[in-house]
């Protein structure tokens, strides 16, 4: 570890992994509820399992991004973190807030939670992904501001690199767009319109900047390719991300009561959204092919390349599949959306957080650069188990979604929602099976932190 203050990243990464486990467990619960409707009812109703599944995902990714920033910014800026104590304090504030939120979802009915947290003073609850009580949202803003202050001051006092500036821009955007979680107009169209400013402009906008910056940092470290080359790619990728992603928000505005022109704007710009992901894949493989050194941390390279490929497939290809307005007319809100959501989140954001954890954790745990061979083999097994099972989850949900769209909306004799759900139950069972394999992959991933931890560090067999 080059700077002592980078150590603050470690608890963030650990919390991220713990919440990742919770997310997958609740995913399996609701996956089963699709086919076994009263499973764990009334203890964990479907809507609660879904809230926990999606909210823990968002929170653990935020923990991952914060850990990544605390790890990479001191190294990029070539200086210690501005206030490591603040980072530690905010870690506990954020963790307690996340814990209280999940406990609230599980222990009391949602309406009671709204009452207990005085939602009526500033109503923000009840919207998908932003279900957190208002008081928790305010806590998130405080954590985000303290975090931005800490990272911003570190960047300001040290070396300014493209990687740290792009990361800072992404994190700033993340904080700014979250503020729209507090704007809840009475008009339902306006409500949904601005809700997408949080949801879409996060995952198809500023989060991609964070992804690009973390990927660039890891590629610089593991390949030894000149920083200038990687930075030029990064500039072009983030430019394409913003050019396509911002107006691409329109693909959410097709059927919510907004003007007709959004069907054109949304279709054209979001059809171009795969371009930055395509470029990211070419760039990641090109950098690894042109590497100047063999890094002993093989799983980090695997995660980095996997991020590029899976993000292209999940966000790019599966996004394109249903982004054009005439197609979306039939597929809107079907399991095709779920298929896209699963692979895109896994490919773009889960994998990039696991990439930086894979690169940084051995160093944070006292290694020079990499874990032992045994640990690395296990981690690479977890990569393949999780990634292949996610591919199957996506394919099963896609199959379910196509049948759903056809039987419910395209057919000359459309069937009702629940009748169709019964007909696609086989796909839900197969998805659940793939989900179990994913959980096994996650267990193997966690085991890789403990197995072979006393063995000697892996070395590079041959230099390029």
């Amino acid at each position, binding site marked *: 570890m080059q700077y002592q203050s980078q150590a603050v990243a470690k608890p963030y990464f650990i919390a991220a992994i713990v919440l990742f486990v919770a997310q997958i467990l609740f995913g399996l619960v609701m996956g089963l509820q699709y086919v076994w409707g009263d499973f764990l009812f009334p203890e964990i109703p479907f809507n609660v399992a879904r809230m926990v599944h999606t909210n823990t995902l968002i929170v653990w990714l935020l923990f991952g991004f914060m850990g990544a920033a605390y790890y990479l910014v001191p190294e990029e800026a070539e200086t210690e973190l501005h206030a490591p104590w603040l980072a530690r304090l905010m870690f506990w504030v954020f963790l307690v807030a996340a814990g209280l939120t999940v406990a609230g979802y599980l222990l009391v009915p949602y309406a009671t939670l709204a009452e207990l947290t005085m939602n009526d003073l500033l109503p923000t609850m009840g919207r998908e992904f932003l279900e957190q009580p208002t008081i928790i949202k305010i806590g998130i803003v405080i954590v985000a501001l303290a975090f931005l202050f800490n990272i911003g001051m570190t960047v300001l006092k040290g070396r300014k690199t493209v990687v740290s500036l792009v990361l800072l821009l992404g994190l700033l955007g993340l904080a700014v767009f979250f503020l729209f979680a507090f704007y809840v107009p009475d008009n339902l169209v306006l409500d949904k319109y601005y809700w997408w400013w949080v949801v879409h402009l996060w995952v198809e906008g500023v989060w991609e900047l964070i992804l690009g910056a973390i990927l660039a940092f890891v590629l610089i470290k593991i390949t030894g390719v000149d920083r200038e080359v990687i930075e030029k790619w990064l500039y072009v990728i983030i430019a394409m991300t913003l050019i396509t992603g911002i107006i691409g928000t329109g693909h959410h505005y097709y059927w919510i009561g907004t003007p007709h022109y959004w069907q054109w704007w949304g279709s054209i710009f979001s059809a171009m959204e795969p371009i930055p992901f*395509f470029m990211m*894949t*070419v760039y990641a*493989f*090109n950098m*690894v*092919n*042109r590497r100047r050194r063999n890094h002993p941390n093989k799983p980090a390279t695997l995660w980095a390349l996997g991020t590029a*490929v899976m993000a*292209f*497939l999940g966000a790019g*290809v*599966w996004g394109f*599949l249903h982004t054009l307005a005439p197609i979306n007319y039939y597929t809107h809100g079907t399991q095709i959306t779920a298929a896209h959501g699963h692979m895109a989140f896994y490919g773009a954001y889960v994998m990039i957080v696991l990439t930086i954890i894979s690169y940084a954790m051995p160093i944070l745990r006292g290694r020079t650069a990499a874990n032992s061979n045994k640990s690395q083999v296990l981690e690479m097994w977890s990569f393949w188990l999780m990634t292949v099972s996610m591919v199957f989850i996506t*394919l099963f949900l*896609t*199959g379910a979604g*196509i*049948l759903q769209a*056809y*039987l419910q909306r*395209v*057919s000359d004799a459309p069937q009702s929602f629940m009748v169709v759900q019964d007909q696609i139950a086989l796909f839900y069972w197969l998805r659940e099976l793939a989900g179990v394999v994913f959980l096994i992959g996650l267990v193997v991933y966690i085991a890789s932190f403990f197995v072979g931890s006393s063995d000697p560090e892996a070395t590079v067999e041959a230099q390029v």
Partner: protein
Amino acid sequence: MPVSEPDTAAPGQNLAVAAEVLYLANLLLLPGLAFVALLVLYYRNIRTAAGLPACHLRQTLSASLWAGALLVVANLSIVLLGGYHSAHTWMVVIIYFTTCHSTLVLLGVLGLAKAMAGQCYRYPLVGRPL
């Protein structure tokens, strides 16, 4: 006028990159037209090209021909055999096309990255033996 190579580029690297770009363009932007351009590039250069460019020209032509068969012929067969008005036909066609097309694109991305790094590349299954 021949395209000048940068100092660090391997001999024929631009030609190799052009072949990979046309393979990808055939799949993504200009199906058919880009394939014709690839054919022209192939027949104009294959006799004089050696090493890196010859490898990429041969691989991309072979992979493009396979891509045509896998995407056009196989999909038409599925629709003809399964029937146009069947939900299951459309499920199979869409999943098959999406996975097959994405795989072919990803192979092209790997080929392009190899060409840009001045290395030869054999397309798995759809490429010619080196």
